[in-house]
C-alpha cells in the first residue's frame, strides 16, 4: 500500500507506545499517534489529556485537548489542578508525548517565542502543560516533521527541558525521569546517544536518504553505528489511521 511521510511518522510513533503505558497526550500529532496505538497493538494503553480526562478512548481525534469525546469515553474526569498535582507531578505517567515548534539536538523544546522574548518576531502559544510533562513523566516521546526551521542548532527560548546542554544535566537538577528518549519525524527515528544524550538517527524510513535527513536538520546530525530501516506501515496500521482521520474529518465538519 502507498503511504505518505506523515502517515509513516504517525505510525512509527504509535509503535513506541506499549500496552501498559500511561501516556500524557499532547494535542495534534501526538494525539493521532497515541490513539492509533490504542486502536492497533496497545488496546490497554491509558491515555490522559491535561483537561483532566483519564483513560479516555475517543472514537475520533479531538481538535482540542478538551473535546467532549474525551470526557464521554473516559474512566473518570478530574479537575485540572488535580491532574497536574496527583497524576502528573505524582509520578504516575510513564510516557509524555509531545510535539514542538523548535527543538535542539538535546531535545530541549521551544514553544514560546521566535526571536527575543520581549520583542518576539513570532509569539508562539507558550508552554501549556509541556514544561512539567517534560520533567515529571517517566520518559518523553517527541514527534514533529523534520526541517531546518524546526530542528535547530540553538533554540531561542527553553520552554521545556530535554537534556539541557547535555548528559548529566537532568540529574544535576534533581530529576529522576529520563527526559526525551525518542524523536520520530517524517524522515527517521532518533534516540539520544547513551553517552552524550545527543539525538542520533537510529532508523530511517523507507526510501529516505541520509542526505535528505542531514539537509533537513539544523545541527550536524549524527547517525548511529547501526542504522535500521523503519518497517513500512502495515495494511492494518494504515487502515486504522485512515479510518481514524476520516471519522475525525466528518465529526469536525472539515479537514482534521
Amino acid at each position, binding site marked *: 500500500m502507498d503511504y505518505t511521510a506523515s502517515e509513516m511518522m504517525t505510525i512509527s510513533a504509535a509503535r513506541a507506545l506499549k500496552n501498559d503505558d500511561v501516556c500524557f497526550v499532547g494535542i495534534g500529532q501526538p494525539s493521532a499517534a497515541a490513539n492509533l496505538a490504542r486502536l492497533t497493538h496497545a488496546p490497554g494503553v491509558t491515555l490522559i489529556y491535561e483537561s*483532566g480526562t483519564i483513560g479516555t478512548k475517543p472514537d475520533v481525534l479531538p481538535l482540542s485537548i478538551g*473535546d467532549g469525546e474525551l470526557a464521554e469515553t473516559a474512566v473518570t474526569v478530574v479537575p*485540572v489542578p488535580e491532574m497536574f498535582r496527583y497524576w502528573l507531578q505524582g509520578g504516575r505517567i510513564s510516557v509524555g508525548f509531545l510535539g514542538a515548534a523548535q527543538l535542539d539536538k538535546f531535545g530541549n523544546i521551544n514553544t514560546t517565542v521566535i526571536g527575543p522574548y*520581549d520583542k518576539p518576531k513570532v*509569539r508562539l*502559544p507558550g508552554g501549556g502543560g509541556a*514544561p512539567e510533562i517534560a520533567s515529571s513523566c517517566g520518559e518523553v516521546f517527541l514527534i514533529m516533521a523534520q526541517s531546518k526551521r524546526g530542528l535547530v542548532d540553538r533554540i531561542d527560548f527553553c520552554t521545556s527541558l530535554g537534556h539541557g546542554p547535555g548528559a548529566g544535566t537532568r540529574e544535576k537538577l534533581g530529576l529522576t525521569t529520563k527526559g526525551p528518549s525518542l524523536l520520530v519525524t517524517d524522515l527517521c527515528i532518533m534516540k539520544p546517544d547513551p553517552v552524550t544524550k545527543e539525538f542520533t538517527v537510529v532508523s530511517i524510513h523507507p526510501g529516505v536518504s541520509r542526505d535528505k535527513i542531514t539537509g533537513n536538520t539544523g545541527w550536524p546530525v549524527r547517525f548511529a553505528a547501526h542504522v535500521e530501516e523503519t518497517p513500512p506501515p502495515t495494511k492494518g496500521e494504515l487502515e486504522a489511521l485512515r479510518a481514524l482521520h476520516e471519522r475525525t474529518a466528518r465529526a469536525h465538519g*472539515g479537514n482534521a
Partner: protein
Amino acid sequence: MATAQIMSLREAVAAYVKDGDSIAMEGFTHLIPFAAGHEIIRQKRRRLTIIRMTPDLIYDQLIGMGCADKLVFSWGGNPGVGSLYRLRDAVENGWPHALQIEEHSHAAMANAYEAGAAGLPFAVFRGYVGTDLPKVNSNIKPLKCPFTGEELAAVPSLRPDVAIIHAQKADRAGNVLIEGIVGVQKEAVLAARRAIVTVEEVVESLQGVSPNACILPNWTVSAVAEVPGGAHPSYAHGYYQRDNAFYKAWDEIARERDSFTAWMDDNVMRSGPEAFAARGKAQGKRKAG
C-alpha cells in the same frame, strides 16, 4: 454570607465587573463563558487584567477589542488550529494597544488557582525545572523543602477580583452544578472576590446528582444568569457539542484587523446574550458523523 442573585447577564456584568478589575474567565476547552465575554466587550470595560490558562478565542476577542491591559496565561493558541492572531498582534505590534503579559505553565496556574481557593498566599510545586520561564517572570521563585532540602518552585496565588464561568445548571436558590471536564472553574470562583456564573438552565432542584457532584453552593457566587448556549463555540456537556468548524473559521476571521472588527461588530456589538441560544442549538447534542 450573601447569597447568589439570579439576574440577567447584562445586570450581572454591570454590577460586578469594573474597569481595571482582574478577571478570570475559566473553562478548560469545555464551558468557556463566551456570552459573558461578549457582554463585557459590549459594556466596554477597559484596563482589565485578564487571567486564563488558555486564552482561547474569548480572550483573542477581548484583547482585539481593547478591553485588556494585561494578560496572565499559560497557553495562548487556537487549539489544534494555530495562532490567536489578535493576541499575537497585541504582543508583536501593540495593536490596538500594548499588552503586558505574565506567562506561566499550566501546572503553575492550576496550582496558583488552587492556592487562591485555599486562602494561601502562594503555591508550591515541582515545576519550571531547567526552563527559561523563571528568567522572564519574576513571579516564579525557588523554595526549599524544609525537610528534604529539595528545591521546588513557588508562584503567588491567583486572587482575581472577579471570576466568570459557565455551567450546566443552577437551581432556583442559585446553587451551581458543573459536570464533565470541570477544569479550574471551582478554584477560580473560590479564589475570586466576586463571581458570576452563566448557566444553560435554571432548574427547580439539583436533586438526583451524585453526592459528590461538583457544586458551588449559592453563598460562594454573586450572580447567576441563565444564558442557554452561552458557551458557544465552546460546548456544554449534555447540551451541545464543541463547534470545531467555528474554531477553524476563526483562524481566517481573526487573521486581519478588518475582518476581525467586522465580525465583532456584526456578532457581538450589534447582538446580545439571547443570540447564543440558537448558536448552541445549531450544534446539537450529537456529532453529525
